[in-house]
């Protein structure tokens, strides 16, 4: 029998049984019981109620049992902070055990229990173990400082742990040095303050000598730390390079790339051209070797190589063949290789590169990769003029294949070549025009239309070709429509004799049949231009184009500098500074790092709160509103941490109102006043509306209503029927509503409902809020006894725990929603006290039945449920 037995399905009363086993005196049975508990924990079962019983087993000299208990503690301490304190005594005792393994284990586990209350007890043992005689204990303690910083940064600063940690850089044991460096790096990152970790030249020497003796992981952290050091002069920079260069031969790819980073950094300070050349020469073989590793390492290496080559293209200029794709490389590797090939291609190697690219375009099966190869051929043509002719020839060959995506991509690429080298390759236009029918992709259509317009005077049947497109005008993409409009105008200016009808037709289409403002505007501009001064129009429309340039750098210089400092990081993989692609940067999130769409999210919050936040919202900068982050994250990740939601008293708008709300006042509604309320009865939603004519103008008639797209797809089921209202008259109608599945509904959860009402005098807009109880269906109602069972049946992955910080606020949010799922009514059990989950008096609900990934989130305080 093996450990697999612990995974067998569990029976009723299992918890009780385990409890008894944990209290037995038989040590081996006790150990078995702990193993079972951990197995249950592994498969996602909640065994947190056994906390005191498991803690009971902690006082044991048996290291295995101790470790198992610690494993459990780390997992559940957060949920049971009060009970975790119980374990503290044992930790403190263990931290002065005679066995260094136990001392280290205690200090290590204490740090992993991420409970703030425990930190004060941690201070003393940690101070002691940082000065322990055993290096194993010291290195564990060094790491613990970073853990402590994560939970309680102030404590770390107050107690002088940082200085102790910096002192450990001079430790005689290299592994302790490495861990101290790793710990400091971690703290520097978490705090966002890089000045925590700056070191003097003496410390640099210590790091360099520790480099030779510590583990590979330690080497990575030390090299990373060295890369932040600014050498004072060229001599120092060279000496660092000399010491680091042997690391390029390490088996660990992370060590290699970090060493490359240090060398590249120091090279900037080197003045001696000869030695720079020597060092550069030493960099290329290790980079090439990275490409012989597993694909996942290759991918990261390739992304970094692109950055390095942007700055120093000569490093790998002779190794271009290494980047030729292998048949069984994954596509993500091939795509990056092609990019590097184009970057490295020069007069000498371009012929070879083109042969390869042609091979990929012909023989590969992956559509995206083939496209990439075709694009790359175009880039070669733009980059190296001498090979442009060869490129065009290859592209024509590709067009002959008649494979639609190859043809389309080739045409797009040829368009760019035309723009870069005008009046050279127009002889191929005929071939291009033969392939009209295989074009589906808008970009390709646009490209061909541009070519037709640009060379209208040389293309015999330009008029017919464009007319064919005009026929299907309505079905074209807006970008293609714009392109077609311009091309037709060009055609007219170049060959005005028989194309007047055509241009008129397109101008008509653009200005009357389109609802795209850009297209209409452009149509009007052309129309006016043509009708006032055709000669001027010629100057404007047929103006010289700026030529397309090959831009070898995918990133601009400033960013490149930044990224070169971050070689071997995720930023270097994404070619973006870290701040721009990770929303959540942890507790120390920097306000400046907010993504651009925050303002949109703020708007949604406003919607949610009834449309007017300005009066009550605290006037903080937008980016600092934690709600914003949570809303953004909510859509794709279920971890949800409301911190301090803006304190807005919402009680009124959500408790079931007794009367209609005023929606539109007479002064805003042109004499029409509207009151209304959304209600649900018998499973049907209706909008109770009262219309009043308080105008002086006379009777109102011709009423109609329309709802803007909203999160729930709520809209009217029938047309609005309101009779003509004479002055002073009022009429109440009940408008049947329905929730329609609509893919275009806004994805952001919001209770806002925008309504437009039309009458003979005009259209009037107002906003209402959808009361949640209207959307929730009755059959989701859960009775008291059912509730705890359902609660427990929720898979751990779908659970989100949260506590409400501000008892005056109410925040309702619905995430990952969508229609066709069961909404639940909560009214039934607001008032009931439940023993589990233990969060009274506030109740936090996270509930969903189907589909499992959807959930409804509700946080209420007692005040709102009265």
């Amino acid at each position: 029998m093996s450990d697999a037995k612990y995974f067998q399905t569990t029976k009723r009363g299992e918890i009780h049984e385990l409890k008894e086993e944990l209290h037995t005196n038989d040590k081996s049975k006790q150990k078995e019981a702990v193993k079972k508990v951990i197995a249950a924990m592994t498969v996602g079962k909640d065994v947190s109620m056994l906390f005191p019983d498991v803690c009971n087993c902690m006082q044991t000299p048996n290291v295995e049992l101790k470790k198992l208990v610690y494993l459990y503690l780390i997992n559940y301490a957060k949920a049971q902070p009060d009970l975790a304190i119980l374990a503290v005594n044992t930790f403190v005792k263990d931290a002065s055990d005679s066995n260094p393994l136990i001392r280290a284990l205690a200090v290590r586990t204490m740090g992993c229990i991420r409970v703030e209350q425990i930190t004060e007890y941690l201070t003393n043992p940690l101070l002691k173990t940082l000065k322990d005689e055993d290096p194993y204990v010291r290195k564990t303690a060094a790491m613990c400082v970073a853990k402590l910083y994560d939970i309680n940064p102030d404590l770390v600063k107050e107690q002088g742990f940082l200085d102790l940690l910096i002192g450990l850089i001079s430790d005689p044991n290299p592994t302790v040095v490495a861990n101290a460096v790793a710990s400091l790096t971690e703290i520097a990152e978490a705090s966002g303050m890089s000045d925590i970790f700056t070191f003097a030249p003496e410390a640099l020497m210590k790091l360099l000598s520790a480099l030779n003796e510590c583990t590979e992981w330690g080497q990575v952290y030390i090299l990373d730390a060295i890369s932040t050091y600014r050498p004072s002069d060229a001599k120092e920079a060279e000496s660092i390079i000399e010491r680091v260069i042997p690391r390029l031969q390490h088996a660990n790819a992370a060590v290699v790339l970090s060493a490359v980073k240090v060398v590249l950094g120091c090279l900037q300070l080197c003045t001696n051209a000869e030695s720079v050349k020597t060092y550069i020469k030493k960099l290329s073989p290790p980079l090439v070797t990275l490409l012989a590793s597993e694909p996942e390492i290759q991918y990261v290496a390739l992304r970094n190589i692109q950055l390095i080559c942007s700055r120093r293209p000569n490093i790998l200029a002779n190794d271009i063949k290494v980047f030729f794709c292998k048949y069984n490389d994954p596509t993500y590797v091939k795509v990056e290789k092609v990019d590097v090939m184009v970057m490295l291609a020069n007069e000498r190697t371009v012929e070879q590169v083109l042969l390869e690219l042609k091979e990929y375009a012909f023989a590969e099966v992956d559509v995206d990769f083939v496209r990439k190869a075709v694009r790359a051929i175009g880039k070669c043509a733009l980059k190296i003029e001498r090979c442009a002719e060869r490129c065009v020839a290859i592209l024509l060959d590709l067009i002959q294949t008649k494979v639609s995506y190859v043809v389309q991509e080739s045409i797009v690429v040829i368009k760019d070549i035309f723009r870069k080298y005008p009046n050279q390759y127009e002889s191929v236009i005929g071939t291009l025009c033969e392939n009209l029918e295989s074009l589906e992709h808008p970009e390709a259509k646009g490209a061909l239309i541009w070519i037709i317009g640009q060379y209208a005077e040389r293309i015999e049947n330009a008029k017919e070709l464009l007319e064919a497109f005009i026929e299907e005008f309505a079905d074209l993409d807006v970008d293609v429509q714009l392109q077609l409009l311009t091309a037709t105008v060009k055609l007219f200016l170049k060959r005005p004799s028989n194309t007047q009808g055509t241009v008129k037709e397109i101008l008509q289409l653009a200005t009357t049949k389109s609802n795209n403002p850009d297209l209409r505007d452009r149509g009007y501009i052309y129309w006016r231009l043509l009708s006032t001064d055709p000669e001027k129009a010629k100057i404007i429309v047929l103006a010289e184009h700026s030529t397309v340039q090959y831009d070898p750098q995918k990133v601009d210089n400033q960013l490149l500098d930044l990224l070169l400092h971050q070689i071997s990081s995720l930023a270097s993989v994404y070619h973006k500074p870290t701040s721009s692609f990770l929303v959540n940067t942890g507790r120390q999130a920097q306000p400046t790092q907010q993504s651009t769409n925050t303002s949109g999210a703020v708007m949604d919050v406003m919607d949610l709160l009834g449309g007017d936040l300005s009066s009550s919202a605290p006037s903080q900068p937008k980016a600092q509103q934690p709600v914003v982050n949570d809303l953004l994250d909510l859509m794709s990740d279920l971890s949800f941490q409301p911190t301090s939601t803006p304190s807005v008293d919402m009680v009124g708008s959500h408790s079931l109102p007794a009367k209609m709300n005023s929606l539109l006042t007479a002064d805003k509604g042109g004499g029409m006043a509207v009151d209304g309320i959304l209600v649900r009865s018998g499973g049907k939603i209706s909008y109770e509306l009262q219309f009043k004519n308080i105008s002086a103008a006379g009777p109102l008639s011709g009423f109609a209503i329309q709802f803007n797209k909203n999160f729930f797809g709520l809209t009217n089921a029938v047309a609005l029927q309101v009779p003509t209202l004479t002055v002073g008259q009022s009429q109440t109608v009940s408008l049947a509503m329905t929730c329609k599945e609509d893919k275009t509904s806004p994805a952001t959860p919001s209770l806002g409902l925008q309504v437009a009402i039309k009458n003979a005098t005009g259209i009037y807009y107002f906003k209402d809020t959808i009361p949640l109880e209207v959307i929730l269906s009755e059959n989701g109602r859960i009775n008291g006894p059912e509730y705890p069972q359902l609660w427990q049946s929720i898979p751990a992955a779908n659970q989100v725990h949260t506590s409400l910080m501000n008892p005056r606020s109410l925040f309702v949010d619905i995430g990952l929603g969508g229609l066709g799922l069961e909404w639940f009514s909560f009214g039934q059990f607001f008032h009931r006290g439940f023993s589990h989950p233990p969060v009274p008096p506030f109740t936090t609900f996270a509930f969903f039945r189907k589909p499992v990934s959807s959930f409804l989130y509700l946080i209420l305080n007692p005040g709102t449920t009265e």
Partner: protein
Amino acid sequence: MINSIFVMSPTGEVIIEKHYRGYISRTCCELFWNEVQQASNPSEVKPVMVTPKYYVIHVQRYGMFFIAVVQRDVIPLLVTEFLHRVVDVFRDYFNEVSEESIKENFITVYQIMDEMMDNGIPMTTEPNVLKTMIVPPTILGRVATSMGVSDKSNLNSDLPEGMLSSIWWRRKGVKYTNNEIYLDIIEEIDCSIDTNGLMVTCDVSGEVLVNCKLSGMPDMTLSFTNPSIIDDVNFHPCVRLSRYERDQVMSFVPPDGKFKLASYSVNTTGQAVTLPLYVKPQIHFSGTSGRVNVMVGPKSNLAGRTIEDVVITIPFTKNIATNNLSVNHGTAHFDDASKVLRWEIGKVPKEKSPCLNGSVSLVPGTETPESGPTILVDFKIVMFSASGLKIDALTMSGERYKPYKGVRFVTKAGRFQVRS
């Protein structure tokens, strides 16, 4: 700093989750799994992914997914290398890595993962050292535990000696009655040959694998007759890098047991490598049928060595309907589902050239392929070094005994591809 590590079965079930810096919900694994299901093949999933809250870095081995979730910018290669190391250690401990083996040993798995990383930073990853702290499961031990006979813990309750010494990869007090050290130098030829039989790329890379069963603290020195053949080399941490930099000699105190001493790439810019065998494919399609002719044979005399385990794999396009392909040597098998032909030649005979001949027909109405498929070639030559690398001497100092030393060269096909 790694936040959490998840191990996912080939069917997407999370079987191990280990949190190093607070709990992270399994939800991010679901996002990852969506990505896997959308990909044409799991191996096409990018190794680095970004979800709204976390980065997900993963490696795939033995059909399983080893997923690291991180919250802040990290050194991705460190994460990847660490995951590789985790897999290697599992294989070392349990002889195989599979859903069953991990579930069967999950307590050991957790103990290992606990020891390998602290606070998201790798700690002890050297299998030698790990094994002195956590004893690998043995069948006997398992039987004893299940019968309740033994309460022996698999954890060593004392810190292993020398763990933090400057020779942290070797445990102290190793003893063998027979002191032996074996070197396997395995070279791989990666090469692409174009339709005209010209070499597009050709790289030779090698690995020096060591199985060391030596007592005490032996200090080894390995030197080559022609070290200049080695262009770039990566060493196990035991190798003294500065010594190699100076003398081009590998000097090291070996870890106990099996390890990879070095991997190197061969300088091929000077003279082209002569390939040990030729593969001449002629595959042409016209209309609804195609002619196939592939010839294989030895190219150079290989110092009298024979080419073994030759396998030719031809992944035909999916629209092949029928085939009548025959071979004059070995066995050929055409897999109808994947349309892959696997031709096992075995040893290449001296007297005749193995040949595959015949025709294929296409599903009517489908596209005629523009060019033939890329053919994959596999082979092995024992006691032959493609690069011509020669060992000068392997000497030992620091111990008194005289060890038995064995050296073996093997040349294999790496990614050896012939376009047709």
